[in-house]
């Protein structure tokens, strides 16, 4: 056993090594936290774009993005701006997807003729 004993042969309750271990563990996790934060803007809300039922792209609601979806059925422009996501443009005949406005946790924006959906995932 490598346990430390002081002069009277009694064991210490807490020693330098222990504190060193504690401090380094905390330091490592703080660094990890910061790294995770930078890597993944983790507010948790993501935008899922599907085409034909299959996942096409995942975007973060925190990052302003412009996504062009060009398929054999047509063209849609999905925009993330100021924490909101909507379909800005589309070459479908009725443009219901554009008129639908913002996608929310309760509302998925759908472009029926292009088989496109834009929804918000809150995990």
């Amino acid at each position: 056993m490598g346990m430390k004993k002081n002069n009277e042969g009694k064991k210490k309750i807490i020693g330098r090594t222990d504190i060193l271990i504690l401090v380094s563990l905390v330091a490592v996790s703080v660094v990890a936290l910061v790294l995770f934060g930078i890597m993944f803007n983790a507010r948790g809300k993501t935008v899922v774009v599907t085409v034909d039922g299959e996942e096409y792209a995942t975007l973060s609601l925190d990052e302003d993005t412009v996504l062009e979806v060009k398929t054999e059925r047509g063209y849609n422009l999905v925009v993330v701006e100021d924490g909101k996501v909507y379909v800005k443009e589309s070459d479908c005949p009725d443009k219901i997807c554009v008129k639908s406005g913002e996608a929310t946790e309760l509302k998925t924006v759908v472009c029926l003729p292009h088989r496109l959906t834009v929804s918000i995932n809150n995990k």
Partner: protein
Amino acid sequence: MAKKGLVSILVVMGMILPVFCFSSCGVLRAYSSGYFDYFDTYSSFTVYASSKEEFNSFAEIFESEAEKYHKLLNIYEKYDGLVNLASLNDQAAGEKVEVSRELMDFLLEAKKIEETTHGYTNIAFGAVTSLWHEARESSEEEKYLPNDNELNEAAKHTDISCLVLDTDNLTVRFTDCDMKLDGGAIGKGYAADRIAEALSDAGYHSFLISLGGNVVSRGHKGETERKKTDEPWLSGIEDPTAYFEHTKDISLALPKSVDITDMSLVTSGSYQRYFELDGKIYHHIISPDSLYPENNFLSVSVIGSSSTLCDGFSTALFSMDLSDGKELVESTVGVEAIWITVGGEIIFSEGFESYTVS
């Protein structure tokens, strides 16, 4: 001493192994999927399951039931070996046609709805709705309104009592050769009810299904047979004013969401299917009174425990006067509604606000 050390390691391993057996009883989480193959609209579901296998089984049941009713209630396509509404429209004029138990059940339910809605939701209205369907599907350059004479003539062939059902022998016959069935007003609601039934029977306690915005939920979120929760399934009420030029500037104070736990919410809206001609909007809900789409409302949403009834009601209320509609809703137990008028006014039935969440 070494032997003790070895045994300790073995004991520790023995602690880790059982953990992998427990991997099969996983933690409950939400799975979702969406489809474009049914009822000419977007359908989706969210289910709480404890493994990918449970989710896959759910999806299989959902898909097979949805496909079954998509084919059965289709009036535009026929399928080999299947008698559906389209085949009845072809063959049942004057002749007895054998149908499945499922189709018979649908037709019986449809007759009940016609009665309850005082004829406003009538599956025998197909002769009239098909004229409007053709007008709506015509190309942009050649848009036209159906001919009044044609409409009046077609309206003579919409008497649902000409739909003769023999429940003992499972046959159907039209005594009016020019009658056509159109299940569009209650089809999605009926299918949603059947799909929810099949899923509940298969043991799923917590799910939400949507057929083109026709929503049905069961159980609370994350609920299982053993564990009850109280997190509600919520649905939003769409703002219809955003869809039309002449209503775009209206700002509506809609409820933030509606608690639809164990209920169904169905919305009929002029903004869902319409065409424009000479600056006027012609949507897809045709009134049996005027034979034209009525423009009192932008949308009507109905909440209740039967999706078939809600679907039937939302269609009927759209064509009815507000006062008649309110009377119908108030006199029907377990059904509440919200009307949004073309002027941007929101009207609730007496009990609707007990479902809203601010």
